[in-house]
């Protein structure tokens, strides 16, 4: 047996700006085992629910993460709405869907940029982030914020989009779709990128299920599970099929995310064409009492929002299981047997969001 050594990886590493630490057990250059250690940015946001009014907590829930902030606010609101038996107006559901899909585009473009950066393809990284800027401008126009939107409230949304804004969004995504093509081409057809991604970190379907993978991670091994198909918000009225790939390697994960950007464009277009007129929120009186597990599909995968209420304005418990929590164990599986130099790229292909995970 070759001599074993342990190499610390992180908590600060150039590949991702968030703190995650791994102890890599190496045999020569091959990773035998990886022991993760998180907990550098635990803020106890779940605990705050006990001292903040449940209507106010929406603003805290969306500050769990800077990238999936819209989804966190929406997931929390939907679980409280479900407990209280409140049905948000249809227009609010459509607006939520449009913003959610815009978040997905922005998250996936961010990830593509980071992936290019991890491979050292700097110009591709800048190109991806330049494209992402356009969707951030649309967020700025419609909500007033670039990453924290504060538009969700229990019973609907706070801000409406007028026809000018909807037009601006649909024009922007038409333009973006055109500009995404050469970028997607570079990710999927470039020889060097292909050599770097193909066959790296293969996850088998049965392995993915056992390790609890979610989101693009699960779909890249050919399992068509997308929580949007549960039909929350306006997704039951829109037509789409989960994007899947069959190889389960890093290339497949990249491919799934790129196809999902195109799918999000199509969903935004559908939602804009079908959006009904009407009120954007319903008044909510009283306090929730009950519990519910809400599942929504975040850009990184399925997220679980558990709310337990006791009939007062302070909730008993709010639990948020983020997609990255579920994706860390499969990531450790992927690392067994890979080369030390591939570790940064493998961490990145799960699209980790550590501050989400620790809340």
């Amino acid at each position: 047996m070759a001599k074993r050594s342990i190499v610390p990886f992180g908590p600060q590493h150039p590949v991702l700006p968030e703190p995650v630490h791994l102890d890599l057990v190496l045999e020569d250059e091959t990773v035998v085992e990886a022991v993760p250690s998180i907990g550098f940015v635990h803020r106890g946001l779940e605990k705050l629910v006990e001292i903040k009014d449940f209507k106010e907590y929406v603003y805290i829930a969306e500050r769990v993460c800077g990238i999936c902030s819209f989804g966190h606010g929406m997931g929390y609101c939907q679980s409280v709405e479900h407990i209280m038996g409140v049905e948000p107006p249809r227009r609010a559901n459509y607006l939520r869907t449009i913003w959610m899909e815009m978040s997905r585009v922005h998250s996936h473009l961010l990830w593509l940029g980071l992936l290019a950066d991890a491979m050292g393809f700097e110009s591709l990284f800048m190109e991806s982030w330049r494209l992402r800027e356009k969707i951030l401008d649309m967020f700025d126009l419609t909500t007033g914020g670039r990453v924290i939107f504060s538009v969700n409230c229990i019973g609907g949304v706070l801000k409406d989009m007028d026809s000018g804004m909807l037009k601006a969004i649909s024009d922007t995504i038409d333009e973006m779709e055109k500009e995404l093509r050469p970028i997607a081409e570079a990710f999927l057809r470039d020889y060097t990128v292909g050599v770097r991604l193909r066959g790296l970190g293969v996850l088998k379907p049965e392995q993915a299920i056992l390790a609890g993978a979610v989101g693009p991670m699960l779909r890249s091994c050919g399992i068509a599970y997308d929580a949007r198909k549960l039909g929350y918000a306006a997704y039951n009225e829109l037509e789409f099929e989960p994007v899947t790939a069959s190889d389960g390697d890093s290339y497949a994960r990249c491919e799934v995310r790129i196809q999902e950007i195109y799918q999000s464009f199509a969903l935004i277009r559908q939602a804009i064409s079908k959006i009904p007129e009407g009120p954007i929120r319903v008044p909510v009186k009283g306090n929730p009492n009950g519990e519910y597990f809400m599942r929504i599909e975040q850009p990184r995968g399925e997220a679980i929002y558990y709310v337990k209420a006791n009939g007062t304005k302070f909730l008993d418990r709010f639990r948020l299981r983020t997609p990255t929590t579920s994706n860390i164990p499969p990531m450790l599986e992927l690392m067994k047997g890979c080369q030390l130099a591939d570790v940064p790229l493998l961490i990145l292909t799960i699209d980790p969001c550590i501050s989400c995970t620790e809340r």
Partner: protein
Amino acid sequence: MEYLNTIEPITMEQFLPMVIQFKMDGWRLVQICACRLPEQYELSYSFAKGFDMRTLRLTVGEDEPVSSITQVYPCAFIQENEVAELFGVKIESMENDYHHKLYRIARDTPFKEKG
């Protein structure tokens, strides 16, 4: 399009056999959550297959040990450590036990008391 999303209260004896049954039927572990009750804990283990989700609800006393499910689902270790560390639930024979060192926090079991 109604999919299963149920919460099923179970006893400690039923717990591990049901988890093993879930694994044999190809369900995946979705989440583990603890909640504080007066002198008790409420543990929820959710499993999903396709779009169906079932949650097992276990109520345990404050000092009552709960056996770990990491032998069945190794991926449960992060969430089990979290439950043990934030709430002080006694989870036994955990693989990858971090011994309250998962999160770098100043206080032991901060979620155990209210407020």
